[in-house]
């Protein structure tokens, strides 16, 4: 393949994967920047959406509506986890919230194992997702192009929401300095609920494409995405929303790029190379690419 073709392939694949990573990272980062809570149960929202796709697949409901229901259920689950699990420990030590999120994650995963199945379940995707399309000399799965468009549109909507609406400005203010925002009259509970709702919505959208890539859903389907999202917000800069998005895209491009540049016998160690680069980034920028300037605990 010539260089131009490779470049197009890298750009599109990188944007597609990076877009998903960025959405996930933003969902995780939104909650983190407001509550200083790394919500490891975030991955289980992908589980909820994934199993919804699986369970509703045999029904005559059209695919796009199933997708809508799956995304809505992820958002609702996110709001409920905040209400039921995180709100009671909100004023406790941040580590309590972290442990709560692990507990919640284990609970939901085991519920899926117990009540649905311990085996991977196939989620057939419609032709729209699985067909290939030719761009120049390269073939792409339409799914990748759709995910690219959807994530870019969603990112643009999110930016518009965060900069133009009252709730969005409140969210960004709260993400910057939660206490100060409350002292100016921002309703803490409402802003936290909104953060969890958006976080769940993003997880739901990511779930569709994540499950679409793999084609199956398992109880641990959320583990890798949440880990990737976490790494993305760390290299982007904990607490910075822009940083989270940049971190997501960076990971996506690196991941796809390594696939091209590594010799085939080293491809199995792609993750090692990827995280090696992450470590290098952190060596030079310990607070992440965009430091939020508030890495110390809040008083």
């Amino acid at each position: 393949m010539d260089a131009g073709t490779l470049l197009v392939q890298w750009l599109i694949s990188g944007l597609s994967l990076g877009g998903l990573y960025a959405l996930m990272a933003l969902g995780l980062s939104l909650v983190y920047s407001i509550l200083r809570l790394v919500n490891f149960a975030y991955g289980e929202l992908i589980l909820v959406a994934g199993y919804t796709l699986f369970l509703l697949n045999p029904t005559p409901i059209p695919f796009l509506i199933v997708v809508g229901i799956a995304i809505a259920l992820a958002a609702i689950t996110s709001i409920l986890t905040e209400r039921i699990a995180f709100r009671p420990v909100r004023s406790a030590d941040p580590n309590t919230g972290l442990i709560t999120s692990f507990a919640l994650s284990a609970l939901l995963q085991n519920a899926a194992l117990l009540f649905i199945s311990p085996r991977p379940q196939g989620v057939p995707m419609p032709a729209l997702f699985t067909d290939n399309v030719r761009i120049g000399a390269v073939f792409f799965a339409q799914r990748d192009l759709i995910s690219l468009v959807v994530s870019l549109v969603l990112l643009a909507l999110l930016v518009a929401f965060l900069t133009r609406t009252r709730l969005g400005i409140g969210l960004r203010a709260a993400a910057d300095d939660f206490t100060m925002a409350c002292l100016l009259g921002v309703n803490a509970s409402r802003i936290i609920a909104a953060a969890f709702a958006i976080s769940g919505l993003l997880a739901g959208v990511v779930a569709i494409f994540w499950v679409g890539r793999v084609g199956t859903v398992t109880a641990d389907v959320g583990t890798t995405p949440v880990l990737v999202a976490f790494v993305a917000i760390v290299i982007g800069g904990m607490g910075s929303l822009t940083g989270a998005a940049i971190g997501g895209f960076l990971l996506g491009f690196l991941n796809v790029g390594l696939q091209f540049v590594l010799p085939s016998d080293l491809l199995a160690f792609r993750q090692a190379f990827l995280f090696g680069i992450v470590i290098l980034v952190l060596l030079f920028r310990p607070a992440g690419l965009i430091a939020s300037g508030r890495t110390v605990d809040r008083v």
Partner: protein
Amino acid sequence: MLVPLFTYDLSGSTVLRLSMSSPRSSPTLCSYSTVNAKDAKTIILISVLCCGCRGSPDLVILIAMTNSLQIDTVSVQFAGLRALDAVSLTLQRGEIVGLIGPNGSGKTTLINAITGYVPLTNGQIYVSGRRISGLPPHRIAHHGIRRTFQTIRLFKQLTTLENVEAAAVAAGQSRRAASKLAHATLERLALSDRARQTAESLPYGEQRRLEIARALVTAPPFLLLDEPAAGLNESESDSLLNILIGIVRADGCGLLIIDHDMRLIMRLCDRLHVLNYGRTIAEGDPASVRANPDVIAAYLGGRR
């Protein structure tokens, strides 16, 4: 639908209801009452309706801006330390009260207590007769109380304009009104040129001004400033305070200010309130407070 032409916190205002037997007779007073925050909107509606009916014999008159912030024997206990001990203080709208005292005397704790940042151990706080102590911070803010911190606490990653807009939006303004108010406030504090820059990129003195812009944007009835001029040089702090006084006098808000610069405090304040070890040791006009032996002893040491 009625679209209010302006929004203004009317809580604490007095309403007089007058009745007139005919449009030309002199009115007689039938009742008066104090508006609480909940009724404020209703009252506006009533007065709009009354004005709407021509020849209506009833008049509703609003006498605004009579509210006060009342701190009633407030105590705050931190584990073994009594940070505030039965402190009482009333702040009227339109007056500037200086809160002074040596380091650790409880000045900042008092502001923290008023704004719901730390819980009270004892005592109550009222805004125009309505209890605000025990409410969550955002509800207290909705009673028209704004504060600044001794250390600058801007929304660093937001732009200058967004910092002020966020405050207006948090106070319940619409997106459009918030933007308009924010632009006007930046203009007043000479920050318009910086509107699109992030807050953290501003020079220190302008960050201080932005903090005040953010607190002032919705013309709050009560403003609590914790060392607003900290870290500024003399000419910077003079110009900041001149802007501040102008705004305070124009908006008629009550200002409680903490500062260590006695020259400035003496010049600025209508009244002083002195704390030492969490207790009130003196209050009154600046001249009498400066002459008070307890105050001199607290600052310079010595037996009382």
